[in-house]
């Protein structure tokens, strides 16, 4: 006797060669497609610059998004301003569209708290302790539900992170309370050196939602159209009281885990080469080419434009004035406790001299 059954759908519009797997969603105009293509290029240009800055000592450890651009870009494009993003640490693509310009993203990874500033004032800052963001996102969603607002929360995580207890706890409460939340999993096949297969025996990450009592689905995470469309639908469902959704976006981390990692130690070369054929920009360009919406000249123009805007952001970043040392204590509490005044004095006396 079977008491429960489930199935997991897989969504794809653009195949790796740029041909259609199904008719495009009506919500996306030809201009939208061009915009998504542009955003992915912009992100890739930025990413490349960030890694170069790290190599020359002008940035700290940076987690790249190479090959995974469709996910962040689609998230940023699908969310409404009034929604709330509770990101993990590989979300530059969503963040720069949500009021966190590249120079601030660089500031964050450059070791400066001011880089967590965001024009979308309710978005959370980058989250490093894995899966803690998942439970926090359910809290944001609960507040939205409490106030009966038509808004949604979107939170991200890597597939490795879905092994954490906090992730399951978040799924459970999201289902139990029918929260307005979308969980997006960047399944880039590797959690540093641990492969998707070593990480878990589950057939799909998406089906983890089933245990939480709501639906999960897979999308081709290298198909920006599919990622956008499925996130759009899930956000709409969340805003209108339909509850949570888990979206597993299947992609591949073409870069190292971070600039501190060397993937050659564990990643099979053949796997990497095969993954390059499926990357997200290639297929959208092929589609646009085939529909006379794109050509080499436009491509060259776009690349140049991306380089220029990233240059400007890098310039801003490199010219930021250092923060005063008192920033170390002045944001800890609404008011620095009177009883700790002597510590602030010591900081003022000695803090300015770096002694590295």
């Amino acid at each position, binding site marked *: 006797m079977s008491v429960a059954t489930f199935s997991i759908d897989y969504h794809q519009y653009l195949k790796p060669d740029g041909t259609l797997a199904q008719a495009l969603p009506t919500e996306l105009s030809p201009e939208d497609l061009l915009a998504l293509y542009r955003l992915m290029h912009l992100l890739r240009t930025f990413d490349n610059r960030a890694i170069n800055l790290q190599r020359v000592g002008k940035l700290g450890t940076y987690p790249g998004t190479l090959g995974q651009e469709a996910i962040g870009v689609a998230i940023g494009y699908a969310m409404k301003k009034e929604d709330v993003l509770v990101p993990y640490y590989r979300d530059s693509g969503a963040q720069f569209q949500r009021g966190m310009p590249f120079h601030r993203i660089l500031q*964050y990874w450059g070791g400066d*708290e001011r880089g967590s500033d965001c024009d979308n004032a309710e978005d959370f800052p980058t989250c490093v*302790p894995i899966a803690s963001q998942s439970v926090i996102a359910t809290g944001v969603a609960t507040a939205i539900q409490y106030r009966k607002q038509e808004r949604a929360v979107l939170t991200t995580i890597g597939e490795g992170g879905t092994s954490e*207890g906090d992730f399951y706890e978040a799924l459970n409460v999201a289902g139990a309370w029918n929260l307005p939340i979308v969980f997006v999993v960047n399944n880039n096949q590797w959690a540093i050196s641990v492969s998707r297969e070593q990480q878990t025996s589950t057939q799909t990450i998406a089906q983890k939602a089933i245990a939480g009592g709501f639906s999960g689905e897979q999308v081709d995470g290298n198909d920006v159209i599919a990622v956008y469309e499925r996130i759009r639908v899930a956000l709409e469902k969340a805003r209108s009281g339909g509850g949570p959704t888990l979206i597993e976006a299947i992609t591949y981390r073409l870069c190292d885990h971070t600039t501190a990692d060397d993937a050659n130690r564990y990643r099979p070369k053949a796997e990497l080469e095969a993954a390059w054929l499926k990357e997200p920009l290639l297929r959208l360009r092929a589609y646009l080419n085939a529909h006379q919406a794109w050509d080499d000249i436009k491509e060259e123009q776009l690349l140049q434009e991306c380089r220029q805007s990233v240059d400007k952001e890098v310039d801003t970043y490199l010219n930021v004035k250092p923060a005063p040392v008192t920033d170390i*204590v002045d944001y800890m509490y609404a008011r620095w406790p009177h009883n700790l005044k002597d510590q602030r004095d010591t900081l003022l006396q000695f803090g300015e001299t*770096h002694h590295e």
Partner: protein
Amino acid sequence: MSKITLLEAVTQALGYELAHDENVVLLGEDIGLNGGVFRATDGLQARFGANRVMDTPLAESMIAGLAIGMAAQGLKPVAEFQFMGFSYPALDNILNHAARLRNRTRGRLHCPAVFRAPYGGGIHAPEHHSESTEAIYAHIPGLQVVIPSSPARAYGLLLAAIRSSDPVLFLEPKRIYRLVKQEVPDNGEALPLEKAFVLREGSDITLISWGASLHETQQAADALAQEGISVEVIDIASIKPLDTETIIRSLNKTGRCVIVHEAAKSGGIGAEIAAQIAEKALLSLLAPIQRVTGYDATMPYFKLEYSYIPSVARIVHAAKLSLEFA
């Protein structure tokens, strides 16, 4: 014999114990093929196999739970948390189970597990990778907390930690992972746990520290010595339990001390050391105890981290305040 770093000494100790005790197993995130993000377990999976050097799924509460369960079965698990900042999901298991198993069962079960983690700032790492929260763990009855500050002590203390029949949190100061090299014979000789090490003998003032801060503390001692001051330097090493005897003996001699640690000041281990001195050597004190510590603030991101980490200048300044106290 070639000289090795603190990091390599950790690898050497793990290799020695794996080779000599089949109950020893290693577990953690990325410790296998990748050899750990700092390479502390480099080559060990190739030497001892994936069933003894285990890459776990990404989950720290699980890692601690696995280690406790294995330890209760008589294995000697050495679990790695990738960074101390990611150990907190495991705190529940460490506090509520690892540290209590012996007491709860009146000795029927115990927990000979080691939890290793790199800790502390100074390597320009991202957020959450640089804190020093040893006091949180040292406050847990039943847990031992050990911090080496040289390759030789890393080797000897890690061996002792693995051989201990009670759980040990072994914190590795990553700022000095590769700072100095030392000859460390791979002879399997453990150093005693529960002991502080007198690194330098002197009679005017005692500088007390542990972990990476000993680097600045030793430099401060050098600077003071140049001015003709006779400085004693103590490496606490065993954060819990504290070797009060060594501390008090030194204080009875010098009557003055500066305690240096990177962790935040309030409720830090410096406070416990100061309390022990007040209890047991008050009448030997010639000046108020000085503490040079991190501020009661979150470890700043790396642009400002060296404004937070105690500097040589701060230590020297504090020592002079103590020495000038009539």
